[in-house]
C-alpha cells in the first residue's frame, strides 16, 4: 500500500512538472510576450522597443531558464543598469535590492504579480479560491445526495417505471451543459419580464421583482438563497446526471448478486435489503466517480462564475486568460492541475481502501 502510494505520488509530480512546463511554454510564447509588453508600456511600441522592454524585464533569457526561475530552482535574473540601480525578478517580488540573485519561484512561495488586478498573485488567488470553495461546497451538498438518491431509486428495480423515468431525467441532465442550463434558469427564474417571476409577482407571492437573482456578485459579502441558488444549481445539474447513471449501474449490478437473493429468501424486507445489504457495496463506484467529477466541475465553475459574474477562481482564470495576465494564468493553472491530480490520487487510494477485495490482495 505504501509503495503504491509512493509510486502514485512520484508519477503525480512528474505529471505536474510536464503540465506546468507546457502551460509555461504556451503562455510565454513570443507573441504573448509582445502583447504583454504593449499592454504594459504603451501600445504603439516599435519592434525594437518591444525587444528592449522584454530584455529589461528579464523575458529575453531562454524558455527553460525562465521556467527554472519561475519554478524557483534557478536564481532569478539580475540586472544592474548604468546608474547602479539593481533590478531583478526577486527585487521586484520582494521589494528589497538585497534579494537580487536569490531563488524566488513558486517553490519559495513567490507567485508573481498580476497585471490585471494590480496585486500579488498569491493574495488575488487565495481570496478567489475561498469564494470558489464555498461555491463548490454547496454544489457538492446539492449534487451528491440528489445524484445518489436518483441513482439508487432507479437501480433498485431495474426496468421498472421509476427506473425509466429517472434514467431519462439523468440523461437529460447530462445533455444540458452549464451554459445551457444557466441560460434556461435565468430566463425562467431570474427575468423580470418573462418566466415565472412576473407571474409570482402578480400573484403577490414574492416581494422583489424576481425570484432569484441572475447576478451572484453580492454573494461575496452575504450568501442568500436568492443570489446563490442559480449558480449552484447550474453546476450541480450537469454533474448530477453522470453520477446518477454510475450509481444506477452499480446498484443494478449489486441487486443481482447472490447475497441479495439470499437475504430476500430469508424474508428480509425490500427496504432493509436496499439500505443494509446493497447500499454499501453499490456506493464504491460512485465514490471514485464523484472524486473524478471534481475536475469536471472545474469547467462548470468557470462557466457558471463567468455567466453569473461571481468573482471566484473560475472567473479569475477567465479574466487572466482574456487579459493575457501571464503570471496569474500560470498560477491558476498550477492550482487547477494540482486539484485534478490530487482528486485522482484520492479516488485511486479511496477505491483501494473502500474495496476489501483489492485491499487485502
Amino acid at each position, binding site marked *: 500500500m505504501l509503495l503504491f502510494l509512493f509510486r502514485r505520488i512520484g*508519477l503525480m509530480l512528474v*505529471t505536474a512538472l*510536464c*503540465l506546468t512546463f507546457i*502551460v509555461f511554454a*504556451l*503562455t510565454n*510564447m513570443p*507573441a*504573448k510576450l509582445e*502583447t504583454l509588453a504593449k499592454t504594459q508600456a504603451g501600445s504603439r511600441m516599435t519592434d525594437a522597443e518591444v525587444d528592449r522592454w522584454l530584455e529589461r524585464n528579464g523575458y529575453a533569457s531562454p524558455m527553460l531558464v525562465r521556467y527554472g526561475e519561475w519554478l524557483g530552482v534557478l536564481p532569478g535574473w539580475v540586472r544592474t543598469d548604468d546608474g547602479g540601480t539593481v533590478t531583478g525578478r526577486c527585487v521586484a517580488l520582494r521589494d528589497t535590492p538585497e534579494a537580487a540573485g536569490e531563488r524566488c519561484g513558486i517553490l519559495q512561495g513567490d507567485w508573481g504579480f498580476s497585471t490585471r488586478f494590480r496585486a500579488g498573485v498569491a493574495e488575488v488567488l487565495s481570496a478567489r479560491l475561498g469564494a470558489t470553495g464555498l461555491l463548490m461546497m454547496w454544489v457538492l451538498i446539492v449534487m451528491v445526495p440528489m445524484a445518489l438518491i436518483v441513482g439508487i431509486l432507479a437501480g433498485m428495480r431495474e426496468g421498472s417505471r421509476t427506473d425509466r423515468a429517472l*434514467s*431519462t431525467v439523468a*440523461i*437529460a441532465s*447530462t*445533455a*444540458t*451543459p452549464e*451554459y*445551457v442550463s444557466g*441560460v*434556461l434558469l*435565468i*430566463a425562467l427564474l*431570474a*427575468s*423580470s*419580464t*418573462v*418566466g415565472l417571476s412576473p407571474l409570482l409577482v402578480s400573484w403577490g407571492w414574492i416581494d422583489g421583482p*424576481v425570484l432569484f437573482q*441572475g447576478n451572484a456578485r453580492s454573494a461575496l459579502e452575504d450568501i442568500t438563497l436568492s443570489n446563490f441558488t442559480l449558480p449552484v444549481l447550474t453546476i450541480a445539474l450537469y454533474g448530477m446526471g453522470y453520477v446518477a447513471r454510475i450509481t444506477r449501474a452499480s446498484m443494478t449490478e449489486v441487486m443481482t448478486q447472490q447475497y441479495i437473493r439470499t437475504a430476500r429468501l430469508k424474508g428480509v424486507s425490500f427496504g432493509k435489503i436496499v439500505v443494509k445489504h446493497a447500499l454499501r457495496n453499490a456506493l464504491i463506484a460512485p465514490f471514485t466517480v464523484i472524486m473524478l467529477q471534481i*475536475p469536471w466541475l*472545474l*469547467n462548470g465553475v*468557470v*462557466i457558471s462564475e*463567468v*455567466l453569473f459574474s461571481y468573482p471566484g477562481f473560475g472567473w479569475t*482564470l*477567465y479574466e487572466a*486568460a482574456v487579459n493575457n495576465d501571464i503570471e496569474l*494564468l500560470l498560477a*491558476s*493553472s498550477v492550482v*487547477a*492541475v494540482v486539484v*485534478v*491530480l490530487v482528486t*485522482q490520487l484520492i479516488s485511486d487510494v479511496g477505491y483501494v481502501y473502500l474495496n476489501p477485495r483489492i485491499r487485502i490482495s
Partner: protein
Amino acid sequence: MEPLSWFEILARIAQQLLPVWVALVLTYALSIRFKRRLGLYGKLFDSTVGMIGFGIVMFWLFVALFANFVVTHDSLSQVSGMRNAVPGSALRDPRDLYPYYLLGGDSLARDVFSRMVMGAREVLRIAPFAAMISFMIGITLGLPAGYFAGKLDTGLTFLANLVLAFPVILLFFLLVAPEIQETPIPRVMAGILFLVPILFVTVLLNARFFTQPAKRNLYVGIVLAVGAWAYLGLVFNADPVGLWSMSPNLLNVFVAVVFVNAPTVFRIVRGITLDIKTRDYVAAAQTRGEGPWYIMLWEILPNARGPLIVDFCLRIGYTTILLGTLGFFGLGVSPESPDWGSTINAGRRLLTVYPHPALVPALSLMSLVLGLNLLADGLREESLRD
C-alpha cells in the same frame, strides 16, 4: 402587420421545415419496413428510446442538410427596426423578404430562426467529423498499446493521462488564443493529427489485402491519393481544387477539440483490446500466422464495435458541448458565426430582458445532445441484447 400568435409561429415554423418532415417520414418508413435486414441499425427501431433519439438526431441532420430551403432570411443580414424583436414580429418593410421574424431578432437585428438553422449546419459540420478523427487516433494508438503492452503501452498511457489531467477549459484558453494562431503550433498539431487517419486506413487495407498485391496496390493507392489531397487542403490550405479547406481559426478549434477527445477514446480502446486479446479467436489467428496488425484491425476491432459505436454517439454529443463551450467564451470560429455557442454568448448580455436570442440556440443544443445520448442508450440496450 400584426405580430403572430404562438400558434401561428409554430405553424409557420412547421411549414418552413417541410423538407425535413418529408425526409424524416421517408427515413422512418424505409427503415421500419426493412428493419430485419439492417443489422444493428434495424434493431434500433425495436427500442422506443433509441427511436426517439434517432428521430431527434436525424431531425437536426436534415435541418442542417436542407438549411438553404428552411431559412427565412440570410443569417447575417440585418433588417432595420428588428433589433431584439419578440418572436413573431412582422417586418416593417418586407418587400421581397419573408414578412416575419419567426423567433424574433437578436441584438444586431438578425433573424434568430435562420441563425439557429444555419447554426445546426455549423455544428454538424464540425462535431461528427472531429469525433471521427478522435476515434481514428484513439483506435490507431489504443490497439497497439493494448495488444503489445509493455513500454509502448506505458508511454502512451502516460501521455494520455497527461492530456486528461489538463482542465479542458484551460487547454482551450491556451490552444485557441489568437496569438497561437500566428505560431506554427496548430499547423504542426493538425499535421500530426490528420496524418493518423490516413495511416489508419492504409494499414487497415494493407493488412487485409496483403496477400493480393494487385488489389492492395489499387486500394492503398486510392486512399493515399485522396488522403494526400485532403491533407494538403486541410493542413496547409493548399488544395489545388479548393474542395478541402479550413480557415486557420476553424483548424485551431478543430485541433483543440480532437486533442481533448482522443485520449479518452484511446483509454477505451486500450481497455477493450486488453480484454479481447485473451479470447480464443485471437489465439487461433496467431496460430494461423496472421500478422499483428491484421489481428488488431480485423479480429479485435470488429469485435469491439458495440461499445465503440455507443461511445461514438456520446462523443459527438460531447464534442457539440465542447464546441458550445468554445463559442460561449468567444473562442469560436468567428464573431458572426451562427454556431450555437457563439449565439448563446452574444445573447447572454441581454438575457434577463430579451431571453429569446439565447434561449433558442440553448434549447437546440440541448435537444441535439439529448438526442445523441438517447440514441447511444438505445444502441447500448440493443447491442447488449444479442
